[in-house]
């Protein structure tokens, strides 16, 4: 494995419904540490599936996938890997409604041995950096879509992951908010040198990343430098 690459994928295949749906049909991809990459393509093309494979949320059928030095085809329990290496941001509805903003951001840390006080300090610091210091005791239902997404980003960052995987993080936002969130993700990527991979439908969003990967029918059609 090339030392610069944080992700190396070879001939990765994934089918659903007993092989009827070829969600990933031979993916070959290398992503460098600290890179920002967008994955673009029509609905059903396999973008989320690819992202989920990188985040070890699901297992591929064939091929190889190596992320942050871990062979994801070999390991079985990858929750530690997700906890330590990956920060997920989803499109919508991914905060726990009965917990406050501050508590939501702490949820990943429950799996760690960090003390209660440290947990809170860390969450607070990150919430400040995403400009939510004044909303920490609110419930997510009281927040706007953009604010919710900032909470989700804070939660993804709280355990200092090496990769942020964002699946249409701006998909449910108006264009103004969309820019704010996008800029936030790119800022974090630059400042913390975190590898950022985001799935999107939209070209202007995709173009903000260093590279855009165009996916169609489970295959990579084109990789473009921006």
């Amino acid at each position, binding site marked *: 494995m090339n030392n610069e690459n944080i992700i190396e994928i070879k001939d990765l295949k994934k089918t659903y419904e007993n092989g009827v749906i070829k969600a990933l049909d031979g993916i070959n991809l290398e992503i460098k540490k600290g890179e920002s990459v967008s994955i673009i393509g029509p609905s059903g093309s396999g973008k989320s599936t690819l992202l989920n494979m990188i985040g070890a*949320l699901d297992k591929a059928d064939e091929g190889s996938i190596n992320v942050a030095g871990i062979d994801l085809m070999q390991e079985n*329990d990858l929750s*530690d890997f997700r906890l330590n290496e*990956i*920060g997920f941001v*989803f499109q919508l509805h991914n905060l726990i409604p*009965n*917990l406050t903003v501050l*508590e939501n951001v702490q949820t990943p840390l429950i799996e760690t041995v960090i003390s209660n006080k440290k947990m809170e300090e860390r969450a607070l610091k990150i919430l400040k950096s995403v400009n939510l210091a004044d909303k920490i005791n609110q419930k997510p239902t009281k927040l706007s879509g953009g604010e919710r997404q900032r909470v989700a980003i804070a*939660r993804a960052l709280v355990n200092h992951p090496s990769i942020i995987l964002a699946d249409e993080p701006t998909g449910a936002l108006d264009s103004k908010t969309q820019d704010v969130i996008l800029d936030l993700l790119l800022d974090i990527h630059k400042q913390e040198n975190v590898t950022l991979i985001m799935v999107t439908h939209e070209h202007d969003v995709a173009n903000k990343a260093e590279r855009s990967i165009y996916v169609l029918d489970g295959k990579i059609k084109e990789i473009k430098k921006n």
Partner: protein
Amino acid sequence: MKFRDLIIKNIFRNKSRSILTVIGIAIGVAAVVGLGLVTDNLSASTQNALTAGAADFSVVSGTSNGNNGGGPPGGSNQLINQTYVSEIQQISGVSSTAGVLRTMTDLSNTNSTNSSSTSTNNTFGGGNFRSMTTLIGIDNSSLSMDDVVITNGSVYSNDNEVIIGKNAAQSLNKTIGENISISNQTFKVVGIYETGNFMDDNGIVMSLSKLQNLTGDTGQVSLVLVKASNDTDASNLASTIEAKYPNQLSTSTSLSGMNRMNNGLDVIKSGSWAVSLLAVLVGGIVVLVTMMKAVSERTREIGVLRAIGWSQKRILSMIIGESLVLSLIAIVVGLAIGIGLVELLSTTQILQGITPSFSASLILKGIGVALFLGIIGGIYPAYRASRLSPTEALRYE
């Protein structure tokens, strides 16, 4: 935020469902504890009945149904001649004998109308079972042979005095020093007794001659209580007596009376077991269904938690933790309902004479039931939740 804080917050999320789960478990706890209180109390009274000095067996008429000796009345009781009392006393191996006359009467409206009829037939027919009072005639020196223990006051010393059972004291609302009217005659209550037999505890005991006089059965008894001397085997002695008076007398050990009591108790016990089991089963199903619902409603959230690094074990602990917390609440609610209900019913006719007492083992049983239900009802939903594929869970709408 600690893990346990999250668990507690989660159970307050859907309050009505949590309340339903608590009620489900609490019903199981209440049934086990409430029915346990009643059966424990009944068996404790039965144990008390094994008083020292009690007769080993009783001798009854050979023509009557042999199962009707000494114990609680039921069916017909042929009277036998009182001369048997002294005859049996002469048999070697007999330590002591006592003649007893037993009958039942309805005293429920005695004091107003004086219409009470004393029946020697011991039939339940005319009267309400609950309002029937057992009348027992026995010489005051032989009371211990009939398991009668004075708990308050003193023994009757003349024909105008009676002692009443602790249950009768309650149901007739009489206490020491008060008068009681039986068959147009007035008696003074001088003592309260206990036998441990809940039928006899709802009775009135007076001297044998007075009851014979009252019922017109002069010179007759229902049974002769026999106590074997220390070196004599009671069942051998019983056979000897039966052999000596073929067709005239039959014996029935008072222990078999006890056994019958115990059998009755066993029926009550297995009945209460069945009810408890049913309640526990219903509780288990309620927990299972509500926890399944809680899991399926949170499918997407469980997917998110898995995505942010929670292990399967953590998801499992969260769901089981939630159902255990509900169990802990249900322990308090269930114990309160169970004990409260028995406490309440013990003041009414239904559970008259039962004094519920907190026993540690019963409370532990209740706690055990709740934890069992919490774990059993929670384990499958928790397992399902932990086995959810994160991607499928995230796709769940």
